[in-house]
C-alpha cells in the first residue's frame, strides 16, 4: 500500500466510491459483518452526538464546540485499531476515537461545559486531553513514542492534527524527531480543507500534505478520509508497520468539515454552497451506509429505530453533565503542583477570607 500509494505519485488511496461500491477488491479489508455494523453504529452515535451538541450549544447549554460532522470515518477507523494500551494524542476533533478509547460522552460534555474534570478520563487509559494549541501535541506523541521504544513495549501512538496544523513549526519538529528516533507513531492529518476560514492551499504550496513525509524520511500516504474502508486499511497497515519498528507513519486523511469550525464560526463567510454540495456527495456515513445496505447489513428502518435510542442516551449523559455540581474554588489550586506551595495555600485562604467578606456584602 505504502509503495503503490507513494505520495510522490499523487494518488489518493481509496477503497470504495461515493456510492459505496468497492473500487478494487485487493484493498478491501477483512472485517466481519457484525463488527462492521457495530462500527457503523458507533459512527452514527458519534455523528448524532455531534449534531446534538451543536443544538445544545444553540440553546446556550454548552460553550464553544468544534463539530466533527463529516469527518467521522477517520476517527472511527482509528478507533477500531487503537488498543487500550495504545496512546491517543488528540487535537480537538476526534470524538469517535476518544469514545472508542473509553472517554465517555459525559466527560466530553463536562469539558465543553467548562469543567477540567472532563479531561480526567475515568476509563480511557493512555489518552491525553484535548490539545488546543495547534500542532503542539504532536511532539507529545513523538515523546511517548520514544518511551514506548525505550521500554520495549508493544504499543502505538496515534497523533492527530489538522491541515492548518501542518504549517506550525511543531508539526515539523515532531515528525522529524519521530523519524530520527524511528518510533511507533502514526501521525494522522485530518485535512478537512480549512483551518477556520483559511483553505489548505493557503497553508502550503506542497502538492499534498502526505508528501511532506519525504522531508522526514518516513512513510506517508494520502487517503480518502471519507472512505471508511480506506482509512481502516491504511491505519491497519500503519499499526502493523509501527509494531514491526517501521514507524513513524504520516497519513493525510482527505475529508471535509461539513459543519462550522466551531459553534462561534460562520462558514458562509468563506465557502460556497457549491463546494459544500460537492462534498455532500462524499459524506463518509452515506458511503458506508450505501455499502452496508447493498450488502443487506443495514437498512433505513434499522437506522430510524436506533436513532431515538441514541438521542436518548446522549441526552441522558448530557443531563448528567449539566447536573455535575459545583466547581470548588480549591480545584483551581489543587493540581498546580505535586505538593501545594505555601504561596498557593495563602492564596486559597485569601480567597476564602474574601468570599467570607463578600457574603456579608451581597444580599
Amino acid at each position, binding site marked *: 500500500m505504502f509503495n503503490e500509494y507513494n505520495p510522490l505519485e499523487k494518488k489518493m488511496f481509496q477503497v470504495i466510491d461515493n456510492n459505496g461500491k468497492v473500487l478494487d477488491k485487493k484493498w478491501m479489508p477483512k472485517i466481519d459483518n457484525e463488527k462492521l455494523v457495530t462500527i457503523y453504529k458507533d459512527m452514527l452515535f458519534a455523528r448524532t452526538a455531534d449534531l446534538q451538541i451543536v443544538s445544545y450549544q444553540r440553546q446556550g447549554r454548552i*460553550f*464553544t464546540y468544534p463539530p466533527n460532522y463529516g469527518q467521522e470515518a477517520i476517527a472511527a477507523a482509528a478507533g477500531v485499531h487503537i488498543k487500550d494500551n495504545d496512546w491517543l494524542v488528540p487535537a480537538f476533533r476526534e470524538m469517535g476515537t476518544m469514545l472508542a478509547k473509553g472517554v465517555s460522552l459525559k466527560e466530553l460534555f463536562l*469539558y465543553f*461545559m*467548562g*469543567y*477540567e474534570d472532563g479531561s480526567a478520563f475515568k476509563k480511557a487509559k493512555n489518552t491525553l486531553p484535548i490539545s*488546543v*494549541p*495547534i500542532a503542539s501535541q504532536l511532539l507529545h506523541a513523538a515523546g511517548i513514542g520514544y518511551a514506548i521504544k525505550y521500554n520495549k513495549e508493544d504499543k502505538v501512538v496515534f497523533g492527530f492534527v489538522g491541515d*492548518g*496544523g501542518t*504549517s*506550525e*513549526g*511543531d508539526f515539523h519538529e515532531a515528525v522529524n524527531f519521530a523519524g530520527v528516533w524511528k518510533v511507533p507513531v502514526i501521525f494522522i492529518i485530518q485535512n478537512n480543507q480549512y*483551518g*477556520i*476560514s*483559511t483553505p489548505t492551499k*493557503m*497553508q*502550503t504550496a506542497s502538492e499534498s500534505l502526505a508528501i511532506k513525509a519525504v522531508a522526514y524520511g518516513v512513510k506517508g500516504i494520502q487517503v480518502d478520509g471519507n472512505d471508511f474502508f480506506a482509512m481502516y486499511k491504511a491505519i491497519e497497515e500503519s499499526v502493523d508497520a509501527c509494531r514491526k519498528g517501521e514507524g513513524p507513519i504520516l497519513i493525510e486523511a482527505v475529508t471535509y468539515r461539513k459543519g462550522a469550525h466551531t459553534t*462561534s*464560526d460562520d462558514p458562509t*463567510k*468563506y465557502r460556497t454552497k457549491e463546494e459544500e454540495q460537492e462534498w455532500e456527495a462524499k459524506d463518509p456515513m452515506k458511503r458506508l451506509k450505501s455499502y452496508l445496505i447493498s450488502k443487506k447489513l443495514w437498512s433505513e428502518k434499522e437506522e430510524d429505530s436506533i436513532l431515538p435510542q441514541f438521542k436518548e442516551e446522549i441526552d441522558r449523559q448530557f443531563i448528567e453533565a449539566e447536573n455535575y455540581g459545583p*466547581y470548588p*474554588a480549591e*480545584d*483551581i*489550586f489543587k493540581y*498546580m503542583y505535586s505538593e501545594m506551595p505555601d*504561596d*498557593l495555600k495563602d*492564596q486559597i485562604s485569601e*480567597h476564602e477570607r*474574601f468570599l467570607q*467578606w*463578600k457574603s456579608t*456584602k*451581597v444580599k
Partner: protein
Amino acid sequence: MNMVNAINDALDIKLAEDKSVIVYGEDVGVEGGVFRVTEGLQKKYGAERVFDSPLAESGIVGTAVGMAVAGLKPVVEMQFCGFIYPAFNQIISHATRMRNRSRGLLETPIVIRLPYGGGINALEHHSESMEAIFGHIPGLKVVVPSTPHDAKGMLIAAIESKDTILFMEPKRIYRAIKQEVADGKYTIPLGKANVLTQGKDVTVVAYGAMVREVQKAMVMAKEAGISVELIDLRSVYPIDRETIAKSVKKTGRIITVTEGPRTYGVGSEISQIALEEAFLHLEAPPARVSGYDVIVPLPKGEHHYMQDAYKIFYEIEKTVKY
C-alpha cells in the same frame, strides 16, 4: 462605536493613508478575523495588503520582522494571547533587538495585535493575560486600551511608531463599551497613563478590561465614603512613573488591579515604583489585586479567578483602613 469598530477604523485609516501598512495573520483576510476586527478590510484594500497567513505564529512575527526591515509596516494579529507563545523567540530575539543590534541602522516597526483576557467563557488558552512577561522584554512596548476612543488613537500611534509594539486588546470589552469616537485620524501618545478620576484617599492603577471593574468598585467606595483616584495605565511598558508618583504622593495609598497571575506580575512593579518615588508618603503597603498563581480555569471555575468589583473594593477598603 465599540472597540472592535474603533480598531477597524484605525486600521482602515492607516491602510488608506500609508501604502506600506500590511495587515495579516490567521483568518484576518476573507473572514475578517475571529473577532471581526479586520472585517471588510481585505475587500477594500486587496489581498496583497490584508491577508490570511499560514497557521504559524513564529512565521507571522518572523516574516513581519523581515517586512519591517525592508520598509513595510506590518500589523499582525495573534488570534489569542494563549497562542502568541510560538512567536516568543521572534519577538524577544529579533523584533525587539534589530535596532539595538545594528546600532540604529535597521528598524522593526511592527504592531502585534493581541486579543487577551478572560471572562468570555472560552476554552483553555483563550483567556490569558500575560502582559507581565512581555513588559519584561527589553525593546518591546506593551500597550492596552480601555475604551474605543483610546483603542483607535493608540493603535494609530502604534502603527506610526518605529518601535515594535504589542497592542493588547481586552476582548472581554470588545463590544461591551460603546462610545462616540471622533472621525478621522487622531493619536494618543504611547507611554502616558490617563488619570480617569481624581481622588484623594487611594490610587488605583488598572488597564484594559479591569478599568471598568474598578469603576464599578468605585461606586461601592463612594458609598463607603472613600475617594479613589483611578489611573488607566494604558502602557504596561514603558510605565508612566511620573503620573503614578504624583498620584501616590497625594493619596499615600496605591493598589494595582490586573488579570494575570500574581507573582512577577504588573502589580509588584507598580508597587516598587511607589516605593522608589514616594516611600515617605506611604500610609499603607502598596497592594495588588490580581489573578492567583494558577492556570486560568475553564468557564465553570473562572469566577474563582477573575477580579470583580467586590474583590477590588475589598482591597480598597483594606488599604484605606490599614
